[in-house]
């Protein structure tokens, strides 16, 4: 049983049959462009035997929607998908039994077509809407209920139109940024120059002038905001307020090279076995086994990356009496509610949070913090709806990044070219700073704005994540059959930038290291890289997935000057399998041009093929962007990557032809797919560069400067 089902064991928590012929499906997972609502609707329609257009996906709101934690970790299909599948099947069975009693027929004689239950014996019938319309089921979900056989699927696995797509392309879709309420004020925050700065003084003359222009200045210790009727006036007022603020810089950010700091700063080091860190001493790196022919070692590195949501974070908040209502694009409304309630001293029952669309977020971006900002301003201006938007600079400079990481890898080969020893140590800061309120009080300190208010809690001190394949040790454990790999997770202290969850957590960097190093080993063993992987894999699905991409990538002659490379992983060694093949060219200017990408994925039973394909394509493009271009830069005075010029990302001029291969496994469990492609993508690019020009790229991003540096190494 998943946590979703344990916490919400009743059919009514997931489904409502309404008397007007609609089915309302409740999920705790939010649609952030990944099409989860499309897939969940298909599952509900399938198990209930109703047409898709009868399904309404309810808004995700506290107090009503199931509490499924956070929409993250590629868990939505496994959690919500499975819950809705079982709830739908249980509901259908319940209505069949109820109909049989009412129609006085054998339940086995009943069949359902679009909510019409009809007896084959008597031809008597009744609809779901008459039978169950607006009536609670009042029954638990039966985890052993018979679900529909894949051969009978009408919706699951069939081409589907994404819900809401038409509104997106015609401009009709409403994002949180677009909401207007009567009497609403627009708001902006004014942040310090960097994390550690606190307000010394505010020029009161300037504040008075701002207020004379009809814009209110809302100050709570070092948390500064402005609010007013006209959005552009508010933007200008925020600029004036920024100029009025005098900050105590308190020393600034540490400026030591991050890759040096990861090795020299204090750290917590834990051995990892079977995907789980152990509170045990780290074993020394042993001498290579006696039958070793070759031992190789390498260090791979990635810098800080940002989510870089295209729409800056925003939230709408309104305080009426002791009740606070928040509209947010947070990925975890219940988690946010607990953290905010604690931080603001509001009873959880008085805090109502509803998810509304924002720009794609890919993890813990500024959404929760913007909600806290809006809440602070709304509390200061009771009765007034506050639509608070971050600026581009706020988003770039203040969102929690994906940590920089370093991966030290060493392996030994025997005479047959088999890996007989493997060691990897991964270093980085935390990925686990979502505002979870455990222990109590922790949630509030993880909400950025609450660190700047009066009586603020101290900054959070990250603890090593100890669950299976999370944080730094996500995909640290190779799926390959290496004898007793030595794996170490190093949570490094006092690194300069704020970090939290970004798509794949440590998986991207770990798979980059593993899959590049495998190519280095394959070369040392004089074995084809694909053959070398297959030789060390036992799982048949892993092999099939790798072969599918490799066969396509390596088919046909390679055009001159091009390089081809491959990468493979099973996400968290338990979710979707994915292999990525890349064909590229490195120009004389040391610029990498991507030509082809082949993406194979085995995510179990496919529900929404086009949605799955898009998640793969998007995952590839984002990972290619990380690998080729992205690096958050900073100096003593703060983050210097404050716009799209100083933080370049992949653009239309370097999009390869992308082919996706979906390996369907009818009837098998759904395997989370949203993050499966990213790690293999980064490695495949590096491996293709080696194939093209013979340089091993061991530090991201693969800019012309990195390539030239590698060439002179």
């Amino acid at each position: 049983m998943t946590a979703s089902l344990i916490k919400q064991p009743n059919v009514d928590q997931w489904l409502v049959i309404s008397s007007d012929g609609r089915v309302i499906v409740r999920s705790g997972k939010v649609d952030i462009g990944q099409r989860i609502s499309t897939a969940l609707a298909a599952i509900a329609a399938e198990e209930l035997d109703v047409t898709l257009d009868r399904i309404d996906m309810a808004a995700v709101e506290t107090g009503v929607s199931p509490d499924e934690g956070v929409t993250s970790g590629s868990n939505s299909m496994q959690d919500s998908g499975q819950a809705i599948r079982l709830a739908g099947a249980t509901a259908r069975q319940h209505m069949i039994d109820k109909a049989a009693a009412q129609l006085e027929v054998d339940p086995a004689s009943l069949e359902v077509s679009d909510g019409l239950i009809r007896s084959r014996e008597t031809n008597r019938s009744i609809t779901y809407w008459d039978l169950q319309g607006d009536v609670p089921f009042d029954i638990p979900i039966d985890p052993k209920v018979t679900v529909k056989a894949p051969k009978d699927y009408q919706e699951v696995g069939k081409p589907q139109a994404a819900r809401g797509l038409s509104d997106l392309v015609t401009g009709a879709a409403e994002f949180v940024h677009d909401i207007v309420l009567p009497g609403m004020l627009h708001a902006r925050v004014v942040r310090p120059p960097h994390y550690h700065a606190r307000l010394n003084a505010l020029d009161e003359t300037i504040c008075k002038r701002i207020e004379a222009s009809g814009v209110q200045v809302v100050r709570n210790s070092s948390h500064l905001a402005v609010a007013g009727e006209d959005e552009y006036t508010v933007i200008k007022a925020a600029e004036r307020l920024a100029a009025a603020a005098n900050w105590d810089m308190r020393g600034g950010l540490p400026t030591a090279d991050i890759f040096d700091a990861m090795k020299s700063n204090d750290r917590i080091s834990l051995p990892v076995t079977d995907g789980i860190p152990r509170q045990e001493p780290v074993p020394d790196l042993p001498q290579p086994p006696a039958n070793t022919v070759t031992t190789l070692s390498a260090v791979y590195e990635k810098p800080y990356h940002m989510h870089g949501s295209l729409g800056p974070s925003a939230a709408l908040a309104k305080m009426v009496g002791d009740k606070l209502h928040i509209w947010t694009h947070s990925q975890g409304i219940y988690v946010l509610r607990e953290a905010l309630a604690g931080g603001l001293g509001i009873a959880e029952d008085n805090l109502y949070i509803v998810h509304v669309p924002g720009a794609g977020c890919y993890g813990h971006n500024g959404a929760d913090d913007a909600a806290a900002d809006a809440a602070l301003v709304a509390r200061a201006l009771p009765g007034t709806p506050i639509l608070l938007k971050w600026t581009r600079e706020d988003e770039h400079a203040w969102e929690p990044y994906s940590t920089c990481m370093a991966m030290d890898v060493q392996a030994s080969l025997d005479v047959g070219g088999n890996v007989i020893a493997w060691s990897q140590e991964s270093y980085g800061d935390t990925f686990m700073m979502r505002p979870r309120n455990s222990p109590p009080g922790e949630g509030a300190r993880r909400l950025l704005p609450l660190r700047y208010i009066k009586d603020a809690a101290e900054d959070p001190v990250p603890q090593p994540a100890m669950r299976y394949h999370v944080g730094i040790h996500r995909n640290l454990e190779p799926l390959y059959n290496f004898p007793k790999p030595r794996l170490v997770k190093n949570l490094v202290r006092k690194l300069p930038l704020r970090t939290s969850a970004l798509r794949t957590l440590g998986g991207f960097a770990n798979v980059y290291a593993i899959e590049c190093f495998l190519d280095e080993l394959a070369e040392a063993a004089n074995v084809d890289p694909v053959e070398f992987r297959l030789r060390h894999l036992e799982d048949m699905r892993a092999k099939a997935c790798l072969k599918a991409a490799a066969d396509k990538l390596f088919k046909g002659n390679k055009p001159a000057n091009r390089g081809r490379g491959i990468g493979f992983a099973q996400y968290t060694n338990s979710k979707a399998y994915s292999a990525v093949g890349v064909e590229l060219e490195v120009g004389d200017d040391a610029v990498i041009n991507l030509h082809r990408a082949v993406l194979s994925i085995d995510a179990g039973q496919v529900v929404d093929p086009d949605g799955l394909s898009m998640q793969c394509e998007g995952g590839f493009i984002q990972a290619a962007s990380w690998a080729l271009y992205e690096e958050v830069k900073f100096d003593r005075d703060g983050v210097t990557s404050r716009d799209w010029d100083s933080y370049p990302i992949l653009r239309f001029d370097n999009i390869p032809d992308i082919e996706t291969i979906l390996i369907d496994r009818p009837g098998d469990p759904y395997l989370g797919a949203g993050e499966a492609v990213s790690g293999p993508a980064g490695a495949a690019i590096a491996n293709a560069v080696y194939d093209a020009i013979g340089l091993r790229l061991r530090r991201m991003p693969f800019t012309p400067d990195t390539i030239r540096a590698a060439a002179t190494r």
Partner: protein
Amino acid sequence: MAKFKLAVNGTKHEVDCDPATPLLFVLRTKLKLTGTKLGCGLEQCGTCAVLVDDEPVLTCARAVSEFIGKDIITVEGLSDGRQPSAVQRAFIAESAAQCGYCTSGLVVATTALLKRNTRPSRADINEALTGHLCRCGSHARVLKAIDRLAAEGRSHDG
């Protein structure tokens, strides 16, 4: 504050605002045309594009006063009532959006491109779209939508 007449989506609107206000804020807050998005305010990302006299123009930084007497079409104005335009239909057919925040800008830029050139080369497409960022990675689908339109040989049907 000053009063202006703006021609947006075929209708003349009178707006009363600071003439330095960027067009985007006038469209979104005065005219309630929220399909056009604020992404950066720096003319770096393309989410705020509209058609001005058939040319794609970024609206997040340029003052509304520059647009007097021009013919402005926003993403909402591309569709005929509730019927999406050919470009919008191609975006739907190819699922060329994930979160959709960049989508209206891309629909506008694609519309402008195909008005000029019904069979754009990949270089033409790159030139037209490279100023438009997408973080979800729907680029490949946008390119497919353009291929589909080029194959249909249709430039644009409003």
